[in-house]
């Protein structure tokens, strides 16, 4: 029987954790871009974009991420499109993240006082100018803490992609367990690595929230 040192285990897990980080970043950035598009549709003055974005958000918030991953992975295969696990994982997570970010940001935009819209309108600004120069700069400040906070959910969400076979931290945990028969040690390390990734994010979210509250200043 081969002996595995702690370092062997940890090294393998850390190598796989790279993919957790990459997938998290891709999901977050991609989701942010798609989410911004959804946000503009959601607060648009025309009906159809608003309805579409609303339905999109409901759909992705109302179904488990796991089902979305299955649908992206197995669903497309049904149509003869063979998607590799990394692609299905990336796409599903981007779309899922976009739904949540769009909803968080919509709340922030709507929290901007009506008077800001009215004052900028009365000065002759068009809708896009109001957004760009008056509303978004203020909404962004409010959006920072919940957005950073949500990134924790994204990191944890990536663990589900192990089920469709993408080798990130959780999947590596399973593989290493099968080789070492040390589930408690291995999953202990896995959890620890997730914690090391997430803790700074949730702490900084709390810090930012407190800081922006105390300063109470919108500039």
């Amino acid at each position, binding site marked *: 029987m081969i002996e595995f040192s702690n370092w062997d285990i940890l090294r393998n897990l850390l190598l796989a954790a790279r993919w957790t980080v990459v997938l998290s970043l891709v999901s977050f950035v991609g989701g942010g871009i798609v989410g911004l598009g959804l946000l503009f549709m959601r607060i648009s003055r025309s009906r159809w974009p608003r309805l579409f974005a609303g339905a999109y958000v409901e759909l992705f918030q109302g179904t488990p991420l796991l089902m979305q991953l299955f649908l992206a992975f197995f669903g497309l295969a049904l149509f003869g499109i063979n998607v590799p696990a990394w692609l299905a994982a990336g796409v599903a997570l981007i779309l899922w993240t976009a739904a949540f970010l769009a909803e968080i940001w919509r709340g922030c935009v709507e929290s901007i006082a009506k008077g800001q819209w009215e004052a*900028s*309108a*009365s000065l002759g600004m068009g809708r896009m100018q109001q957004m760009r120069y*008056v509303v978004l700069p203020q909404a962004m400040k409010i959006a920072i803490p919940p957005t950073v906070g949500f990134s924790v959910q994204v990191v944890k969400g990536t663990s589900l992609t192990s089920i469709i076979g993408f080798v990130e931290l959780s999947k590596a945990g399973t593989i290493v367990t099968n080789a070492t028969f040390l589930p408690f040690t291995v999953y202990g390390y896995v959890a620890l690595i997730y914690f090391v990734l997430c803790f700074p994010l949730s702490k900084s979210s709390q810090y930012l929230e407190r800081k922006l509250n105390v300063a109470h200043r919108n500039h």
Partner: protein
Amino acid sequence: MSLIEITDVRKSFGANEVLKGIDLNVEPGEVIAIIGKSGSGKSTLLRCINGLETINSGSIQVAGAQLAPDELHLKALRLKVGMIFQSFNLFPHKTAGQNVMLSQMVVKKTPKPEAEAMARKMLERVGLAHKFDAYPDELSGGQQQRVAIARALAMQPMALLCDEVTSALDPELVQEVLAVVKELAAEGMTLLMVTHEMRFARDVCSRVVFMHMGRVHEIGPPAEVFGAPKTPELRQFLGAQH
């Protein structure tokens, strides 16, 4: 031709008809006070004039710019008529100076140096040249309202709509804002102001409009409206003021 022409304007919120056919012509340089009970439609009328509310029927024109719901018409109209709000509505993420510069640069595409020169001039005019770099939350209510006036003036409108511009202020700050408005009136700016400051209306305005239940119930020079009210509603309203 009048500067502001309001013809048979009707406005409903759902089943609630708030403006029931308003006719009002305002000549250049006139200062008009709009008085009336809460809910009589004073704010709604002002908000209709610069398109913050859409009207159900009738027409509104300011210096030839017709009120229409599309963005192009609205912009043309809003360049002619500015608005000052009860709650100031300064942009909190911008300094006083930037507040006054922003719409010049964004809407009129004025180059920055000129916009800044104009901002300094307008802040000077409301007595706040020294607050150019202050953020709104570093200013008193009275100062914020004066910045808001400067911001509207910087767009060089032909008329200003003022909706209870001193109602949100502590009593000791009311006079500094009224002084600025009075000066504008003296310089010939056309003003349409909803106000509860009867003294001010009497001293400064050329005409007083008494609104009651969505109609112009009585209109005339302050001496007549305050001195010899014709309708029992106005008499009752004026009686309740003291």
